């Protein structure tokens, strides 16, 4: 019986969250005394993957798997799991993994739990803690099925380095036809997606209008951060939908979340509360966001942000 972690790739490289997913898989495999297998598609160089302790790596090179397709991916992962007698699958919290895990659970006869924030607290029964009620609560869930899929919440477990000497294995897959075709893909202008970012710089209605977002983008660029916004900002079309964070938008679970001119409505806070460190910049000292933040500055964003950006640039230059 094995633990299999499925990791995604982008431009033939493992995605950033791979380190965390493999680390989790190692922890789980140790608890279960099983071997840990990494499954990936079309990665050019798998060397870095051995930093987190896999026993085996199965990197399938196949042109039909270059672009994500839910049907093809689910089918191929199922073939791998049944031939390697896998009964625990670990996936990340990305959009694609959340897309494929539910059908995969049916196809592999597993039970799937998403948003998991830690290793099982007991093995018998198999009990996991997950985030629920839009990050307003956690729950303990028991899986009564020998086959399981665990979807981990981004940045909730962290990475644990453990160098290993994995065996590279291969497997002949049959990629099925899919009746769901990808016609086109468009990438937005934002350089870093919220899901991939360690730092998110987010702004709200306090910015007054879309023409003022240059100061937010400049700050994000200095920090290597993704940009995000509150719901009214995307509703008004100041920023693209994909940037809306909160209970009804995207969840943010980054190391650092900087909220500028955002009041801190409960629906906004719910979506960003799992970020480790929150900085709030708001002209109103009574803004509710200050109650949920780690560091706060009361003041005018138009005065503070350009100055902060200059100082951060200097800091970055001196620390490099």
């Amino acid at each position, binding site marked *: 019986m094995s633990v299999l972690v499925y990791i995604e790739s982008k431009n033939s490289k493992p995605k950033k969250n791979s380190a965390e997913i493999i680390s989790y898989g190692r922890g789980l495999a140790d608890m279960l005394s099983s071997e840990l297998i990494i499954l990936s598609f079309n990665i050019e160089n798998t060397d870095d993957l051995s930093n987190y302790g896999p026993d085996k790596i199965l990197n399938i090179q196949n042109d039909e798997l270059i672009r994500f397709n839910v049907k093809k991916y689910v089918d191929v992962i199922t073939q791998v799991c049944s031939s390697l007698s896998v009964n625990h699958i670990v996936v990340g919290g990305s959009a694609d993994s959340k897309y494929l895990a539910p059908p995969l659970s049916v196809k592999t006869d597993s039970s799937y739990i998403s948003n998991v924030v830690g290793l099982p607290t007991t093995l018998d029964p198999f009990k996991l803690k997950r985030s629920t009620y839009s990050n307003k609560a956690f729950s303990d869930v028991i899986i009564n099925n020998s086959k399981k899929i665990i979807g981990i919440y981004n940045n909730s477990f962290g990475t644990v380095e453990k160098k290993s000497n994995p065996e590279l294995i291969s497997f002949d897959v049959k990629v099925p036809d899919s009746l769901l075709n990808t016609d*086109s893909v468009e990438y937005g202008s934002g350089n870093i997606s919220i899901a991939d970012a360690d730092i998110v710089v987010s702004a709200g209605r306090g910015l007054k209008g879309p023409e003022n977002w240059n100061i937010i983008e400049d700050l994000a660029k200095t920090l290597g951060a993704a940009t995000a916004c509150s719901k009214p900002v995307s509703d008004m079309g100041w920023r693209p939908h994909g940037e809306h964070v909160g209970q009804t938008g995207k969840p943010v679970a980054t190391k650092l979340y900087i909220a500028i001119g955002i009041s801190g409505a409960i629906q906004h806070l719910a979506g960003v509360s799992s970020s480790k460190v929150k900085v709030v910049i708001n002209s109103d000292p009574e803004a509710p966001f200050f109650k949920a933040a780690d560091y706060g500055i009361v003041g005018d964003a138009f005065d503070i942000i350009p100055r902060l950006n200059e100082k951060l640039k200097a800091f970055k230059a001196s620390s490099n």
Partner: protein
Amino acid sequence: MKILVCISCVPETTSKINFVENDTQFDKNGIKFIINPNDEFGLTRAMWIKEKDNSSIDVINVGLEDSDPILRKTLAIGADKAIRINSNPRDSFQVAKLIADHISKNNYDLIIAGRESIDFNGNMVPGIISELIGINFVTNCVGLEIDGKKIKAKREIEGGTETLSCNLPVIIGGQKGLVEESDLKIPNMRGIMQARQKPLEVIEVDENNLKTETVKFYKPQEKGEIKMISSENLDELINLLHKEAKVI
């Protein structure tokens, strides 16, 4: 066309979340329930199709009696028939299986669910249904065009959008973008009156064995004290983020 919209009944977004019975049950006391926001976008999108081609819209919920006001609301918005499968929703597979069984008996062309419910946050139900009944599935859907038996769906992906096409039947996991916030249909007086005449069918089912079971809830730890920094001392913020929080 025959459309089914899956409706999850969730606590209103500003609700304070509490638990009772030794933290094993959600405290419904004083909670107002609403249509799950992602499902509300889907229902309006379904109404647009109906307005164009006279499609019929069924809505379905797996839940107990307290879902009925929400189902009446969907009828007032314009759905033709509501179906409630009388079972306490405790596990995504249970919910998906019950809905899938209904779909298998009723040949829908288009099934619209939400990407995610704001209470369980599973991102699970539509994907499980798709595999149980063997139809195509597009989630994180931010645009849907129908042309005869074919659909084109836009899906939000990390950093962009992807356009997919397939034949009906299909199940969608919808979200904002499917329609805009300002497009959302709200019940008017006429709709509310008509809703009283529309069928709300309750289907009884046997309690099935659950593969997963939620046994305890926790509330997150209270936040520690905030550190306030003067706007004249931005160096201190940088210093704290670097040395204390170690995030830059």
